[in-house]
């Protein structure tokens, strides 16, 4: 699924003042999650809406209510857009509908896997494969991990511990 298809609302695909929504999404691909710097905020599914016009407006939603990265993400969006010459931008936070791992792109899941984090598997949340040796024989060590979005697992075959990005 491309990041564009994955998003609920796209106001206009036609460029306005020479800028299209797709252009902005491309720039936002460069803004990474500060806690998992391998995945972009677009692939993570927290960018909910982008509109272009006199001002560029980006709507984001938190993964978890207490996510301490939200302020940082907002700052990074502004910084990145400003680097590309877009100084007039507004970043809004919306709660509803609540974020779900279903909004994570396939590309995002591949990147997590390559980084050593087992990606969420909404089709069968209890089947967690080891991101290192791909074994299905894994055990949960702890429901909670290094960040609110992860749990701790251990592989029974290669014996490596790993993070699992839990279904939410």
């Amino acid at each position: 699924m491309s990041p564009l298809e994955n998003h609920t609302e796209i106001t206009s695909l036609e460029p306005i003042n020479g800028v299209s929504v797709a252009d902005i999404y491309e720039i936002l691909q460069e803004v990474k999650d500060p806690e998992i710097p391998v995945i972009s905020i677009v692939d993570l599914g927290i960018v909910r809406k982008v509109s272009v016009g006199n001002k560029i407006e980006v709507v984001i939603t938190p993964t978890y209510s207490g996510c301490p990265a939200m302020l940082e993400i907002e700052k990074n969006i502004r910084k990145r857009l400003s680097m590309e010459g877009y100084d007039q931008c507004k970043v809004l936070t919306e709660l509803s509908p609540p974020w779900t791992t279903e909004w994570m792109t396939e590309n995002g899941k591949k990147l997590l896997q390559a980084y050593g984090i087992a990606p969420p598997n909404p089709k069968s949340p209890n089947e967690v494969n080891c991101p290192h040796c791909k074994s299905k024989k894994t055990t949960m060590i702890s429901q909670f991990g290094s960040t609110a979005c992860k749990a701790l697992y251990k592989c029974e075959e290669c014996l490596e511990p790993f993070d699992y990005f839990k279904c939410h």
Partner: protein
Amino acid sequence: MSNSLLQYTLQQADNCLILGQRLAAWCGHGPILEQDIALTNISLDQIGQARLWYQYAAEVEGKGRSEDDLAYLRDAWQFRNVLLVEQPNGDFAQTILRQFLFDSFSCYFYEALLESANDQIAAIAAKSHKEAIYHLKWSSDWVIRLGDGTEESRKRMMKAVGFLWPYSNELILGSEADLQAQKEGYGVNLSQIRKIRDDKINQVMQEATLDIPIDSHDQVGGKIGRHSEHLGYILAEMQFLQRAYPGLDW
């Protein structure tokens, strides 16, 4: 905007903040690393939920106070949290049981609140409900593990049950703000939640081989600002910086 709506919002905000603050005190003191992380993760969720509620309360109040003003510049008698959440951490067993008694309410409370006639409240509930389900799973597992565990863990759980049970029902006993909220459609029917909650508590306590006290006397008052002596101490610690250095920022 109505005063009931503000009180109702503060009830939820204060519950989340005080419990979050209590759990945060476990940071670096958990019995094992994984559970230390669990306690602080849950704390973070509660404080995140508290922020959502305070931001909305500040908007409802409309007097220019911010979420921080509401958290840091009110005194104990203005807090609307239930007595349960301000009770001391005690040992791990007491913290676990307090969490379970809270989660077994908040999970079903948020679920019912998804139908709130107030869009902002429904949105906060939808965000928080997913987190509460996860917390309830964790605290239920631990009540069972400790209750049906070793002689020592069981003894400590029984002690925690004796200490905390009087505070277990305030959550489902309606305050004036709760009743008004239900009447106006933005709140929930607490007696319906009580049934589901009681079933969950009975099932978990049975699995944990723990008896529910039959002669427990309900302690209430937090929802109208009558607190136990413990709240003042938490506030003193939590609010110190803003009181000593008003407006101090990071």
